[in-house]
């Protein structure tokens, strides 16, 4: 066991020495190290895996490599964010490994340089179906979590505009509709992610829920969230109030920082399937007329959150055709999926294209599956079988994963 650990450390030294491109003396050191490490199998292992678990330290050198998500971070940062197939994979392999890819690295490098005095920048991940937009989103969420940002993660905005069993008319505004189940479920997951921040932040205004219930000014956000979880009827309004508070305080705490009062509140609004906010819904009112997304409290408040009129954070989002309503399968570009209204609201944004695996990434994925004993069919381990898999999947991550599932 200890021999294995030594070779792990030496492997890291070997890779770092290779990156530095030092002169003759360094090369001699590299050769000496290479002799001491274990043979080709271990070197192949380091080709597709990296021991760097902190997303802040991921760089160009880690492109195509898998890094492990620590289980503690997993439980807190992702109560609801990861795709279903990935959750199955986590359960089967007994570990959660994410590939470091270019779109995620681009977003992370932009996030590192955010100026919190300027309005929030919007990042939009777009690409063909199954190319890895949600996984890149989760990678950037992990970065934000490790850097201590407050994360507002809506895992799939499409779930809020379809298949809603209970649609209540809103208690606060006559023209709007509430979704108590979705709102309370989201509040529960929000609480799991941001336990640390909620007791420290305070409301700036008095909120009245019913004749007998109200949240006073100056009470903590933890109490606000409790109110939403216990009184499910008003949970959509609680979500609206919460978003409003965070919008105001993300900018406000910067001023506190200038007065020397301590850490700024950095807010990351992460929305997957953002084209749901400006599309159509399949929900109907009681007189069987169609519901516009604008008439839903959750969507209305989320639209305000995604506008770039507040400072002190970033908005990371991705398009999704898979869950989208009334949009054809071949649409994947921002203009097509967001529509005119959506594109005008999102403009200006930073588009981040996500493509299928490159040759190196595909190789890495193939080796990872082989290492985890996932590719069992003897023909898939041959060169010819690999060529067939490349041909059948066109290097699309989702298609490749589904192909390998039955092999």
């Amino acid at each position, binding site marked *: 066991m200890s021999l294995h650990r030594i070779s792990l450390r030496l492997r890291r030294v070997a890779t770092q020495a290779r990156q530095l491109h030092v002169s003759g003396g360094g090369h001699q050191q590299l050769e000496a190290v290479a002799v001491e490490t274990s043979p080709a199998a271990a070197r192949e292992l380091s080709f597709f895996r990296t021991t760097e678990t902190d997303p802040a330290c991921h760089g160009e050198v880690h492109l195509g490599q898998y890094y492990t998500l620590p289980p503690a971070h997993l439980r807190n940062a992702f109560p609801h964010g990861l795709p279903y197939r990935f959750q*199955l994979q986590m*359960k*089967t*392999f*007994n*570990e959660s490994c994410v590939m470091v890819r270019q779109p995620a690295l681009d977003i992370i490098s932009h996030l590192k340089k955010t100026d919190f005095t300027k309005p929030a920048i919007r990042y939009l991940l777009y690409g063909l179906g199954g190319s890895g937009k949600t996984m890149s989103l989760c990678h950037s969420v992990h970065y934000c979590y490790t850097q201590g940002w407050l994360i507002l993660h809506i895992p799939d905005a499409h779930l809020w505009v379809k298949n809603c069993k209970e649609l209540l008319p809103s208690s606060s505004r006559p023209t709007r509709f509430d979704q108590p189940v979705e709102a309370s479920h989201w509040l529960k997951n929000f609480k799991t992610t941001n336990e640390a921040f909620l007791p420290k932040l305070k409301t700036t205004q008095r909120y009245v829920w019913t004749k007998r219930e109200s949240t006073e000014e100056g009470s903590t956000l933890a109490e606000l969230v409790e109110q939403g979880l216990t009184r499910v009827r008003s949970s959509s309004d609680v979500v609206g109030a919460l978003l409003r508070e965070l919008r105001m305080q993300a900018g406000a705490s910067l001023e506190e920082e200038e007065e020397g009062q301590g850490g700024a509140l950095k807010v990351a609004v992460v929305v997957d399937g953002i084209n749901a906010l400006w599309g159509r819904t399949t929900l109907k009112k009681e007189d069987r007329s169609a519901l516009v997304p604008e008439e839903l409290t959750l969507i209305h408040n989320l639209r305000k959150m995604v506008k770039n009129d507040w400072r002190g954070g970033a908005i990371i989002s991705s398009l999704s055709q898979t869950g989208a309503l009334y949009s054809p399968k071949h649409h994947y570009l921002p203009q097509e999926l967001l529509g005119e209204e959506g594109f005008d609201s999102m403009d200006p944004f930073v588009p981040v294209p996500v493509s299928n695996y490159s040759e190196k990434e595909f190789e890495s994925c193939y080796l990872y599956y082989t290492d*985890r*004993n*996932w590719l*069992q*069919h*003897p*023909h*898939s381990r*041959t060169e*010819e*079988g690999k060529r*067939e898999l490349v041909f059948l999947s066109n290097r699309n991550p989702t298609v490749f994963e589904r192909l390998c*599932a*039955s*092999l």
Partner: protein
Amino acid sequence: MLTLVRWSRYNPYYLDPETNRDAYTKPDTELTPEQIEERELKKVRPIKAAVAAVSSSGFNDPLMNKFINMMMQEGKKILARDIMNQTLESIKRKQVEKYHKAGQKAKMEIECNPHAIFHQAMENCKPVIGLASIQRGGKSYQVPIPLTDERRRFLAMKWMIAECRDNKHRRTHMYEKLSQELLSAFSNEGNVIKKKHELHKMAEANRAYAHYRWW
């Protein structure tokens, strides 16, 4: 122009296609006289078109194809194929999960290849001896008879599918039921193995009538 869907009506003059790629890599010297004669025949006779479900890739498995055809209802091949793929995936998931959580020694014992498990399970379910109903003097007796290889394979697959369709809880998916039954057949447990043993016992009980068989 008629396109016939079921029971393709090729002229008997047409020969079946050879889809196995390895059959063509053998040089002439290694073939038996019958095989050389067959090859000569293929040069002159027309060949039928290959079926869409069969391919020359290494992933093609004739036993798997037969099983999918037997599972298929109302000509819905894609559905049957998807059920088969989901079965293989669920078997693999269970086994790989067990593998990763097992200790060093136990890892050697666990079989993770779903195709190997499927083949072994089918092998374990095949009966060795069968029964036929023969009439003698007005009464019909259950007589033990030898079975051909195809009959044994057919019985194993039919019992597996019938067991999964009839004797399981109504609300479980077919792939779930199949994966459970295949895994238990792999370790020689489960209802299909029980049925095979019962057939063997019946044949053993009726061995007195074995001389009623005349072929």
